[in-house]
């Protein structure tokens, strides 16, 4: 038999992985269906609505004149008795409660919780309206200019995070879990009993991810563009590079996590141990700047943070290849260290 008729091992091993994935409806859903559904759900939940009206409560005794002044300035006023007013204030249904003077000549009372931003906003709005109605003149002339910055919506923030999260999950499950499963099935051992090169198998794992990644990225980007009008401000090449570097880095982490696991329960436990803290800390859904300042260096060093921030730098801030270098460096460091340790500890049998 001639060389040309012989099937090539890397091609066959890659086809094995791709066929197994394409023939497994569950795998297809988690790779392609789930991130789209998640972006729909979150995009709808956090869609941009018009400016929220200020809602205030008024106890009996607040004059009709004051209520009319507020209503004509766009503030919703709800007349409540004492008990209902307290409950509404506590649950945030009203931002501020207007309490009339107990005796003529005493001042109005604004009852509100200063910890809540919408309560402070409500108090300032109500006060300005009432003071003006009472005849206050503004000494300084001002003018408002309202803008809508591109990329400032929640969905613009979310999509790069979802992309990063999806690529991470794809590498972890598509490699780590699969390795553990092949070990349990003794397929790893069987392949080694044939003259298969170990590097061919690892190479095929990488290659099968490489084939799927462009589809994963494109599907989410096209969907986000069509449904939510999300744009990529920077270059697609830079975005692809961050995606590839992140996927490769997590592929190496997956090999490390699966290097000794003897069953699939162990490996899924370990992978969740690795991934769950990053879902929370790395700012997939909400900016990681909410965490205390001292934790910032640690959070920035996480691979998912690097991938999320890198993708946001390209998609929102318009970064080019050079702008992604710091993120690529973090991803490369994780990838190289994990790969070296993973290979050293790897158990084939």
């Amino acid at each position, binding site marked *: *038999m001639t060389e040309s008729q*012989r*099937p*090539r*091992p890397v*091609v*066959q*091993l890659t*086809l*094995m992985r791709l*066929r*197994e994935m394409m*023939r*497994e409806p569950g795998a297809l859903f988690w790779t392609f269906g789930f991130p789209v559904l998640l972006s729909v759900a979150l995009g709808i939940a956090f869609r941009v609505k018009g400016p929220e009206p200020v809602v205030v409560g008024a106890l009996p005794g607040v004059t009709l004149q004051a209520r009319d002044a507020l209503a004509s300035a766009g503030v919703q006023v709800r007349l409540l008795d004492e008990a209902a007013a307290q409950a509404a204030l506590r649950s945030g249904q009203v931002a501020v409660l207007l309490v009339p003077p107990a005796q003529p000549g005493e001042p109005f009372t604004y009852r509100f919780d200063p910890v809540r931003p919408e309560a402070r906003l409500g108090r300032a709005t109500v006060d300005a309206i009432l003071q003006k109605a009472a005849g206050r003149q503004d000494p300084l002339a001002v003018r408002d200019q309202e803008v809508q910055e591109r990329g400032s919506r929640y969905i613009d923030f979310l999509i790069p995070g979802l992309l990063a999260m999806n690529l991470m999950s794809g590498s972890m499950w598509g490699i780590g879990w699969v390795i553990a499963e092949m070990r349990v*099935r*003794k*397929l790893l*051992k*069987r*392949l*080694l*009993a*044939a*003259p*298969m090169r170990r590097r061919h198998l690892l190479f095929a794992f990488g290659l099968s991810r490489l084939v799927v990644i462009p589809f994963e990225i494109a599907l989410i980007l096209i969907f986000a563009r069509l449904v939510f009008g999300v744009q990529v401000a920077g270059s697609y090449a830079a975005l692809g590079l961050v995606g590839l570097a992140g996927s490769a880095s997590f592929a190496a982490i997956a090999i490390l996590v699966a290097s000794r696991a*003897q069953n699939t329960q162990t490996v899924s436990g370990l992978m969740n141990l690795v991934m769950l803290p990053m879902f929370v800390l790395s700012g997939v859904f909400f900016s990681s700047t909410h965490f205390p300042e001292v934790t910032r260096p640690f959070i920035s060093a996480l691979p998912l943070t690097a991938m999320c921030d890198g993708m946001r730098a390209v998609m929102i801030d318009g970064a080019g290849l050079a702008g992604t270098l710091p993120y690529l460096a973090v991803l490369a460091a994780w990838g190289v260290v994990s790969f070296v340790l993973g290979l050293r500890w790897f158990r084939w*049998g």
Partner: protein
Amino acid sequence: MNPTSPDAEPALLCRGLRKIYEAGRGSGRKRAGAVLALEGLDLAIVRGECFGLLGPNGSGKTTTVEMLEGLIEPTGGEVKLLGMDWAHDESRLRERMGVALQETRLPEKLTVEEVLTLFRSFYQRPRPLEALLADVQLEEKRRAWVVKLSGGQRQRLAIACALVAEPEILFLDEPTTGLDPQSRRQIWGLVAAYRARGGTVLLTTHYMEEAQRLCDRVAILDRGRLIRLGTPAELIAGMGAEHVVELELEAGIGALDEATLRNLPTVTDVHLSGEGVWALAAVEPERAVPALRTLLQERGQHLVRLGTRKATLEDVFVSLTGRALRDD
């Protein structure tokens, strides 16, 4: 071919092969403490021979074959396979041998053809796909997913994967465990056909019928030790009696004691085989049986069953260890 001819180069040679699983590093159930899986095994398998490793579960059969296959590192001893050793010639060795592990689960959602193509890709000189499919009679299943195959078909596919490059030596670890009799006979047919082409086979089994039918020589392992080695006929002859008389009494086993049965003429050995059945190894059953009947009449005992048969390797194992080979 005469497997004991001195001029044949051995296909496989091992000396002092041993394996100790350290505490906490063993596989599966043997985690606590160091476990001796195999103690100093010497074997020489000649080309063209079919050699069987026999023993109950846990006797060390799988550990032994996987060390010979270069998949488990031995704790001590040396292995020469086709004149080469694992440390220096691994890739050349893998080209020239075929392996079917105990219960490999091949990729479930690949077709028969795709699995064979995958395995063909690993070898320098794979046999044509059509020939492989024909060998294991899976032509009609070529486009079926592995998960849809029966147990026998899956095992035939596993053997086809081992035969992809016409190996010089074929390792089969419990090739017919859990299969129905018809599938088992099909596997035996595959092994016979491979041997007819000049191949050497090493198989493990705990089915005595399989060993007796397929193997030129067998080694009986028990608890990591080799306890007998020879042709099936030699091992049976070594028991001292080639016949077995089995009897079952109405009153149960308590009605007779071992010493009484041992005193019957030409009886060399007495064991309880299975539930309430006495098995007597007898040189001349035609003398032992009448004496047994007389004994039972004197004692007023009634038989449920009485039969004589040729001794098997199963009887050899029982007489050597006092235990049945199969615990299932």
